[in-house]
């Protein structure tokens, strides 16, 4: 029997990997994938709480979060395409036209 701690700790570690990834990487696509990793980690937390509470609400929320992730992926990749057309790069350090 695995205690809930393990699932939650795993999800916290994944969330942190995603968080650090967003902060250190420069490639917009990889940053976006790190965000997806963060959302996945949260889904894991929700499902573990849902299972241990014996309550289905958490799983419903994961269902919606999947829909949101899909919508975000579509929009995000479209924006990345647009930025690539303008800059021929997806490096966010080169995206600094607007400062202060």
């Amino acid at each position: 029997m695995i205690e809930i701690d393990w699932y939650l700790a795993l999800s916290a570690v994944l969330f942190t990997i995603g968080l650090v990834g967003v902060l250190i990487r420069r490639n917009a696509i990889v940053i976006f994938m790190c965000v997806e990793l963060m959302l996945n980690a949260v889904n894991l937390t929700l499902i573990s709480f849902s299972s241990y509470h014996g309550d289905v609400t958490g799983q419903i929320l994961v269902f919606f979060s999947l829909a949101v992730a899909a919508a975000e992926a579509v929009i995000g990749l479209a924006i990345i395409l647009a930025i690539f057309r303008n800059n021929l790069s997806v490096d966010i350090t080169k995206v600094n036209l607007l400062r202060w």
Partner: protein
Amino acid sequence: MNYLLDLQSFLPGIIVAVAGLAAIMLEAFKKSANTSFSVTIGGIAVALLFAIQSLYGEAGTAFSGMIVYGGVGAFGSVVVLLGALFCVTISREYLRDLDLHNGEVYGMILFSTTGMLGLAVSNDLITLFISLETMSICLYVLAGLMKNEKIGAESALKYFLLGAFSTGFLLYGIALIYGATAATNLTEIAAAAQPTFLFLCGTGLLFVGLFFKVAAVPFHMWTPDVYQGTPTTITAFMATAAKSATFVAFVLVLTRMLPSSEIGDWQSVLQVVAILTMIVGNLIALAQDNVKRMLAYSSIAHAGYLMVGLAAGNEAGYAGVLYYLFAYTIMNAGAFGVIAYYERNHGLDFTEIDSYAGLGFKVPVMGVMLSVFLFSLAGIPPMVGFIGKYYVFAAAVQAGLIPLAIIGVLASAASVYYYLRVMVYLYFKEAHKEYSLKTPGFLFKWTLILLAVLTVYYGVEPVLPTSSLMELISSYYTV
């Protein structure tokens, strides 16, 4: 359960969503942007009527407790719809000049408004999450409308990446709250909540997500870039309707999910954020030479004043926040409208303050109106902005937060400098060269005049006294 009643309780949102679908379909099959535009205006206006009607009805919950109707939610819906209506009416000419006057843009605005309406009535963290995302995803698209300009695509990328990042925090917050209480309904959470560290951590993360959306310091970095890179009338939509919806959701979370101070001292957190937001927003605004960026920082500062009302944590504070949102919507939509007017005569670079030199006398009515809106934003007495600030700061004093109120008054005194600076350029500087300004269109001009009249009228005669707003809020505690 009675579905018809449920549907009725979210009628404004349904009307707006249907209008959005119609706007897109009309664009696709009839290629007629003007029809889409009329449908948009009509849809929002009808929805506004229903929202105003529900303001006088009773309050309750619908859709199995997912949303609330009446009360604060109804007031929030009215403010959101007003913001959307004004921004759409001033948009047509401006967007036409940018070659963006088409049905999809209006469809996006309407879908975004649907999300905002859901946000303003949410009674469940799931509703809050989904509505917030519906609103944000449409706003990411709208921020990227000028995708062929460098600044347009960049503002969309910045907004999107930071927005998606903050969504992660918001969702983690919801997950931890769910773990601590086994509920997502706001009132059920309030009933089950214990001040465990798990619950506090969850609420903190939820707040981080909301702070990001209302552009509170230290989560404000995206605001100036996004506001500058977005078409000006759309910026007005972001600054008024989106901000109002998120603040109403904030009020709902505070009143319904965290009604007692036993589950965490959130008022002190809000105080700190309010002080930071007011100081940073106003100080950086002082240094801006671009009028649009100046207004972006001013909108951060205004988020700070609103936060003062939330920090007060009493009914007067929440009523003050709601009234302030109404005031802010009117005056800010107006200010962005006039800027859009000047801009459309001379292209996108025409938001530098230098280029405003001597413009005040060119088209007198526009100069006067910009002055009215800026006076109101600065909080100078006979304008609605003053009344809003008065309510918010008075509530803070009533709650015993006198230092907070003093900082607020000082910050807003400092803000007078940068608003007046624009007027100095308008009236007391020599024009560099001769500009010929287009005559503003009928709808555009009269919308702005209406906004200016409302700004002065509600400043002289605050018809929406906070007492009736207080009743709305207290009707809410009992639902």
